[in-house]
């Protein structure tokens, strides 16, 4: 087995990388895939909280590279899903505690046992980003329809394009607010896709359910009734290779037609 290593990155902080990681990881595991998530945000670890695993962490990625434990020992199993594991970041160390080479080696080793290795990237474009990207061959660039987030995503895309190891990258647009788009107060999905000229892998609506699910340590994909959960599930299915149409986040009839038309055009373009 040689698993796919996907880095989830954004440039800007707080746009939903970690949320995306937890949800896509959980959704892929629910679909029967063996998944491991690596939190590379050293010093600012969060992925454990979103998964409700914070009390189960014994070893971290730093313990692995400093050989205080075996890689397998450091993998924390998810409470609900035995297919899902987490390699936690160290909370007390900084970004220099792990090198690009070490992360690459960890990813290579995990590829033997897992279908998917999802790497949660810290914000910024410095060493933390370089480390997170080091072992990956695919990337998901998370952004929101806000100017600063789109600008940072553009920077990240430029950096990813310069990396030979990254074979493909996709755009995930988070915190989309159909009402604001409808009133022309927010950039539309179409606008962002055109500006960044990148393939879209998902559109996630702004959803207060994400806050409550974070509080509970239970990713929103586990809630079958949630729209954001459904959207994340669809992202996971697209990653696996299914052709899933984009959700209609919009209620207004007239706009639905337009949105549909746009989405079907996009799907047509997808490889």
């Amino acid at each position, binding site marked *: 087995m040689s698993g796919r290593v996907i880095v989830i990155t954004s440039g800007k902080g707080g746009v939903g990388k970690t949320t995306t990681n937890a949800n896509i990881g959980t959704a892929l595991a629910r679909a029967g895939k063996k998944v491991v998530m690596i939190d590379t945000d050293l010093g600012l670890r969060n992925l454990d909280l979103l998964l409700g695993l914070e009390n189960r962490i014994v070893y971290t990625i730093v313990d692995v590279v400093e050989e205080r434990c075996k890689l397998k020992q450091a993998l924390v199993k998810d409470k609900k899903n035995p297919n899902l594991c987490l390699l936690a970041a160290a909370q007390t160390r900084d970004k220099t505690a792990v090198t690009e080479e070490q992360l690459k080696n960890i990813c290579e080793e995990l590829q033997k046992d897992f279908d998917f290795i999802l790497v949660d990237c810290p914000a910024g474009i410095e060493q933390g980003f370089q480390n997170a990207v080091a072992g990956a061959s695919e990337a998901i660039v998370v952004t929101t329809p806000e100017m600063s987030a*789109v*600008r940072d995503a553009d920077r990240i895309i430029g950096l990813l394009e310069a990396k030979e190891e990254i074979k493909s990258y996709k755009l995930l647009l988070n915190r989309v607010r159909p009402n604001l788009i409808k009133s022309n107060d927010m950039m539309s999905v179409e606008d962002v896709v055109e500006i960044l000229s990148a393939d879209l892998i998902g559109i996630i609506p702004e959803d207060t359910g994400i806050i409550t699910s974070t509080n509970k340590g239970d990713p929103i994909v586990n809630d079958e009734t949630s729209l954001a959960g459904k959207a994340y599930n669809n992202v996971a299915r697209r990653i696996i290779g299914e052709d899933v149409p984009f959700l209609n986040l919009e209620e207004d009839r007239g706009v639905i037609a337009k949105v549909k038309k746009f989405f079907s055009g996009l799907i047509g373009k997808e490889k």
Partner: protein
Amino acid sequence: MKDIFQDLFNKVFGFFRQAEKEENAKDTAVNRLRVVLMQDRTNLTPELLEKMRGELIELLSKYVEMDKDALELNFEQEGNQMALMLSIPVLRAKDEDEIEDQDDEKTSSENPEEEEQNDNSEDAQDQEPEKENSDETSEEEEQKIEESNTNQKEQKSK
């Protein structure tokens, strides 16, 4: 009752606001982003762009008389390709003699006397010997003064 009026007011006001404003928040964001991303992607800062604009004006003024304030230099996106668009509102093309005269003038104006010339535009006009077609005088005048201004700046920086 109050609500109905409030609602009506909002509707009417909203209508006028919409009619007045051509650009909404979303369009503003898209347009600003486009410009800023072009600059990010090329490393061309607004300062450099302004410098380029100034130099282009200087160069082009030699051949055409134009509305300098309306000259536009912008990045535009065409699909995946970006283009640097220069729009020059031409008032009049200059003829060969004029262009040659300017060349001579330029070489002769590279002396300290020129400072005087810039201080007073009236003087500048007097000192222009080959000014014959008077209907174009004022515009051409401005142009030449600006030109020598740039010359002056250049001399300072040297």
